[in-house]
């Protein structure tokens, strides 16, 4: 069949199971957009390429299929960069397709020409420059294969305009293919599984550290089975949230810098840590020298480069988490850890006393109240997408996610402005889900133009702006570590209600705790996207907090008028 490159591209995307793409047209991808009109794939026009990238990312995280974003050459491609890096740091299966100037002009600084493959080399799993129409089909097959297999990640395909326009004979080829340097079938050594099994069996104070790998490999059921059989408490990384139900009695919640105190204590006191698809990020471990010094460590990860990167482990099982857990379950007998769990329960009690939820109502509106009420009135069943900063940490702490794969956030890169566009992408992936964005007033303003995208597409995501008039997380650090010198953190935002209304959307403002329920309910009943501006207490901080350089037990706890390091 004689097809032009652009037609081959859309046909290939259909064959890869793509139903929706997010993008922005321009001079160097005109042929692709021309052929789009004849394709069954739905295109969502973002308002900025970064938005398109986050949408593809949010889509991929919400449903596990590959998210696709399109952009033109030059500035279109460079605008994608933050989104690609976000997907890279959080292992999100995504394919980015950029237009490139005609191959004859490459290297001559032509209009809107930029070295995209060079720029994105360190922030993609792999990337391609295609200048030959016959390479488009095979390259896209490889790109999708790389994006979704092993440790997923972003793959970029840069296609020159002449390759998009030229025609060639093309038939879709579904036969297996080989990549000499890339093996997807990675399995742990059986002896190591045996050894890990013995260590698990003899541990007295084990803790599971559950990361993003649980979600990426679909190991939620295996994790549950493992926990129930071995009665091992589970601490979650930020990206591991919603890989294990928050209401489960053995769930300790998030660990690390803003983790639950009980989780951090349990990790430090443990004699065995089981790292399931997590990478010992510095936000998780605190000071490495003081990290869980009494614990043996078993790490399961499909990425060999994560083994012994930050923390030396005693046994490394390199392979797919789900498969590996199954094999591990085959050699483990049921066990109990009643004394250990009782110790952890004591820590939990202490946390409850310090929780602002349990403190007397002083009439002020606190962010934890907002998140907690949001959790209550959505029955913990919303698909929550957060922005970055205090809002993100409060969402992680107070929205007790019970639905699987229902917490989407930019963890590794910590990209402000991620929330709204990622939520739009997530809504396309799961149209039936009740999608809520939790964003700060700062992050929301970075990508608020995407409200226009939501309005044009007629889709419903509800936005809860935690508006404290500050770049709150930076302000918190300035309060704790820079003598309250609030440099460039006070921020006077626009009238968010009017912003929503200007987009033809419903906007609301909440200043009292008593108004939260009604606002949430009316947002749920409204037809389209809704923005609620929660005017919260301006100088509230996220507790607990492990300062940089401290170990996990050295947490700043609430309340502390003059924060002090506590050695518990």
């Amino acid at each position, binding site marked *: 069949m004689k097809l032009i490159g652009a037609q081959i591209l859309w046909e290939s995307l259909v064959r890869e199971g793509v139903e929706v793409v997010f993008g922005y047209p321009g001079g160097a991808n005109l042929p692709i957009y021309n052929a789009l009109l004849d394709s069954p794939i739905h295109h969502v026009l973002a308002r900025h390429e970064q938005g398109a990238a986050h949408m593809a990312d949010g889509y991929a995280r919400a449903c596990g299929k590959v998210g696709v974003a399109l952009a033109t050459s030059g500035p279109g491609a460079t605008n994608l960069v933050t989104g690609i890096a976000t997907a890279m740091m959080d292992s999100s299966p995504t394919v980015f397709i950029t237009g490139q100037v005609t191959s004859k002009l490459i290297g001559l600084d032509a209009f809107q020409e930029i070295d995209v493959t060079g720029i994105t080399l360190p922030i993609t799993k792999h990337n391609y420059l295609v200048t030959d129409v016959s390479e488009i089909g095979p390259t896209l097959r490889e790109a*999708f294969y790389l994006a979704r297999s092993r440790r997923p990640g972003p793959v970029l395909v840069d296609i020159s305009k002449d390759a998009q326009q030229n025609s060639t004979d093309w038939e879709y080829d579904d036969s297996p293919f080989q990549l*000499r340097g890339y*093996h997807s079938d990675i399995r742990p050594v059986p002896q190591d599984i045996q050894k890990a099994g013995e260590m698990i069996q003899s541990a007295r104070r084990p803790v599971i550290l559950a990361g993003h790998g649980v979600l990426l*490999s*679909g190991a939620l059921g295996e994790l*549950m089975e493992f926990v129930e059989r071995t009665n091992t408490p589970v601490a979650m990384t930020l990206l591991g949230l919603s890989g294990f139900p928050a209401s489960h009695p053995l769930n300790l919640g998030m660990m690390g810098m803003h983790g639950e105190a009980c989780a951090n204590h349990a990790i430090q006191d443990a004699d065995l840590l089981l790292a399931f698809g997590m990478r010992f990020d510095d936000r998780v471990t605190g000071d490495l020298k003081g990290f869980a010094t009494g614990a043996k460590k078993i790490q399961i990860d499909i990425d060999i*480069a994560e083994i012994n990167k930050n923390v030396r482990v005693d046994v490394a099982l390199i392979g797919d988490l789900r498969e590996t857990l199954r094999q591990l379950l085959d050699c483990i007998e049921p066990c109990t850890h009643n004394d250990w769990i009782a110790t952890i329960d004591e820590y939990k009690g202490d946390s409850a006393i310090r929780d602002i939820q349990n403190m007397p109502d002083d009439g002020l509106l606190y962010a934890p109240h907002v998140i907690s009420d949001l959790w209550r009135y959505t029955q913990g069943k919303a698909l929550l997408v957060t922005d970055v900063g205090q809002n993100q940490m409060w969402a992680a702490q107070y929205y007790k996610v019970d639905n699987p794969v229902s917490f989407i956030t930019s963890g590794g890169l910590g990209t402000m402005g991620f929330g709204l566009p990622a939520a739009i992408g997530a809504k396309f992936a799961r149209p039936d889900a009740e999608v809520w964005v939790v964003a700060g007033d700062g992050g929301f303003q970075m990508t608020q133009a995407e409200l226009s995208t939501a309005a044009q597409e007629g889709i419903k995501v509800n936005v809860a702006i935690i508006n404290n008039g500050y770049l709150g997380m930076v302000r918190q650090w300035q309060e704790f570590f820079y003598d309250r010198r609030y440099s460039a953190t006070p921020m006077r935002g626009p009238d968010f209600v009017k912003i929503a209304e200007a987009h033809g959307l419903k906007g609301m403002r909440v200043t009292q705790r008593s108004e939260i329920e009604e606002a949430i309910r009316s947002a749920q009943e409204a037809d389209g996207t809704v923005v609620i501006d929660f005017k919260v207490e301006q100088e509230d901080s996220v507790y607990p907090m492990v300062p940089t350089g401290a170990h996990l037990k050295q947490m700043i706890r609430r309340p502390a008028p003059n924060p002090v390091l506590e050695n518990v």
Partner: protein
Amino acid sequence: MNHTIVALVDDKPGVLNRVTSLFRRRAFNIDSLTVGRTETPGISRMTIVVDAEEQNIERLIAYLVKLVNVIQVFNLSSVPTVNRDLAMIKVGANAENRMHITQIVDVFRARIVDVTNTSFIIEITGDEEKIEGFIDVLRPWGIIEMVRTGIVTMARGTTPLYPNGNGNGHLAPSELIKDAEKTYEMRIKGEKIWPR
């Protein structure tokens, strides 16, 4: 400590850039790097000498292995090997020192490959130590110009380093999509996997 790493890579544009970018990105310093074709068409062989601690070398190799265009990686630091570097050295030569230089060249089993009235180009191959020694001896005679290839390394013995560099078979995309959908179902359908 110096480590010698051999990497078999796809002979494609940009692959050298991917490898060197990785060293830069992960803050490793390359001591010497050589690239050349192998007996298998489409596969190039890199010999990279890098100064790093043992623990970091493991990590570096893991990153190298992860590059899609890198087929196999070997750390040859702790196996018996033959190492060769080649240098071409241009020295000033006149009637007085000609004989001296020729003798030195003989002693080191080097070769004179170009002669003019005022200069020699001398070619020498050997391990790093031998070449360094040769350069030291030549230096007083006046080195005009020098070029070195960097080290290439081969493990001793008959076993080839690699079994012709073939990867595993891969699944067809239709199966992969099915796989993704299966995972998707497992991920989303909470009531199925979380029994409570």
